[in-house]
Each structure stands twice: as C-alpha cells, then as structure tokens.
C-alpha cells in the first residue's frame, strides 16, 4: 500500500512538473514569430536573424528542461530512494 502511494505520488509529480513546458513553448513561439517578421521585412538578414533566434530559443528552452530533469528524477530515481527507506 505504501509503495503504491509512493509510486502514485512520484508519477503525479512527474506529470505536474512537465507543466513547465508551457512557458518555453509560448516564449519560443513568440521568438520564432518575431524572427519571421524580421526576415519578411529584411530578407537579406536571414542568416544572422536565424542564428540569433536559435540561440534565444535554446536559452528559453532551459526552464522547460529543468522541469524535464525534475520529472526524470521523479520517475527514475525517487521511487527507488523512497521505497528503499520504507
């Protein structure tokens, strides 16, 4: 019973921590939209704009990846740790 509770808590927590994916999704979409606007206005700047956009996207993605790492820890590491302590 306790094991089931621990596993349930870990699974729910892992799912909840991936809510962090919303933020980078919105942010990256906004950045890409603005980059498209910029390329549409000045097509000759395509190269530098694309590079800068990819950089910005990668940095914005970091917060989402933190959520991913927390959920991976909850799935792969936390159950073993807590069940071992019971």
């Amino acid at each position, binding site marked *: 019973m306790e094991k089931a509770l621990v596993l349930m808590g870990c699974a729910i927590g892992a799912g909840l921590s991936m809510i962090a994916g919303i933020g980078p999704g919105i942010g990256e979409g906004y950045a890409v939209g603005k980059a498209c606007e910029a390329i549409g206005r000045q097509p000759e700047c395509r190269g530098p704009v694309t590079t800068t956009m990819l950089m910005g996207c990668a940095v914005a993605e*970091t917060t989402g990846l*933190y959520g991913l790492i927390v959920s991976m820890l909850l799935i792969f590491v936390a159950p073993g740790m807590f069940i071992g302590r019971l």
Partner: protein
Amino acid sequence: MNVDITGAKILFRLPFGIVITETQVNMWIVMLVIALLCKFLTHNMKIKPAGKRQVIAEYLVKMASNFVKENMGEGFMKFTPFIAALFSLASFSSLSSLFGMYPPTSDLNTTLGWAIIVFVMITYYKIKTNGILGYAKGLTEPFAVMTPFNILGEFSTPISMAFRMFGNTASGAVISALLYAGLAWLSNLVLQWLPEALSSIPLLQLGLPAILSIYFDLFSSVLQAFIFCMLTMLYVSSAASND
C-alpha cells in the same frame, strides 16, 4: 509491454573502485574517430592543394576561425582549436546515437565536465581582467545584500549549460524508447488476426521513428553542440571585456 530505459551501463570494473561505463568507452570511440578523421584529412599536405582532402580540411579550419572571429573578436583567435574540438566532440558524440550507440552526451557527467571547464575559463578571464579584488568586488554589486544571489548566479552558468545539453539528448533517447515500445504494442494489437509468426513483427515501427530520429539525432544534437560552443564564446568574451 516492457519499456527498458536505463542510464549508462557498467561495462567493467577496474581496481580501486573505478567503474568504466558505456559513456567512457563510447567517448573513447568518438575521440578515436575524430583523431583518425583529422589524420586522414591532413596527412600528406602540400602548399598547393592536390586532392579533395586538403581542400576539405582547409575549409573546415577556415570556417572554425571565421566562427570564432565573428563571435569573440580578433584577440581571441587562440580559442579556435578549443572551440573546434568542443564542437566536433559534442556533435560527434551526439551523432553516435545514429549508430545505436549510447550517446555520451546523454550522461550528465560528460556535459557537466565540459561545463566545468568553461566555468573555470570564465572565472580565470574575469580574475585576469579585473584582478582578484575587482572580481570579489564585482560579486557585491549593486548592493552588498545581493552577494549570495551573485554567487548563485556564477554557479548557475555551468549548471544550466550542462543541463541544457544533457536534457536535450536524454529526452530524445527517452522519447524514442517510449515510441518504439508504444508502436510495438500497437502493431501487436492491430495485427493480432495474422498468424503468430507475422504478428510478432512490429510492422508499425517502420516509418515514424525515422522522422523523429532526424529531428532528435541529426538536427537537435548538432544544434545543441553549436549552442554550447556559442554560449562558451559569449561567456568567455564577455568575461574578458572590461566594463
């Protein structure tokens, strides 16, 4: 339906508790491949390029030095070998997942090691330009109350760099494993009416994983290597600039 997602497997153990995992062995293979590639491209060089090999090598070197010059300026040209080595190591080790190997970059130890090297370089350049007192004073700005946050900020740079690369590669591996398992289950369900020998072949695994693999293995891994190098250059050149 069993999904098998593991970290790096332990291959063998050395005395004194040293453990050799898949990460290290695959990294050695990647290093060997890069070294052999460099040897192959540069051996028997002439002043007038004779074959295609030397043209390719010159093109790669020129591209790397232009890349560093654009992003760091003329004064940092000595960083070209480091950046080129970092980029080739990162992209080749991520691309090794194309051959079904365990990519060394999906182990946090690898990426954290690179990030610590970058952190040491950043701190070295900050101390070199501002002096050790200037560096300590820079941590207390704008107010003395902010010191703990500034110190945290210093350490968050390598951690975010390491987690970014690790998270991208590892999430690709996890998603591919989940997709393979799900497709195997689905094709078992759909093809149940066929005789046993045919229905055990997961036919649905044919097309879809390839598309995902192009994104995760080819595009994302090279992009992450590029971003790691780009951030290294930006951080180091901003640490060395006197402002």
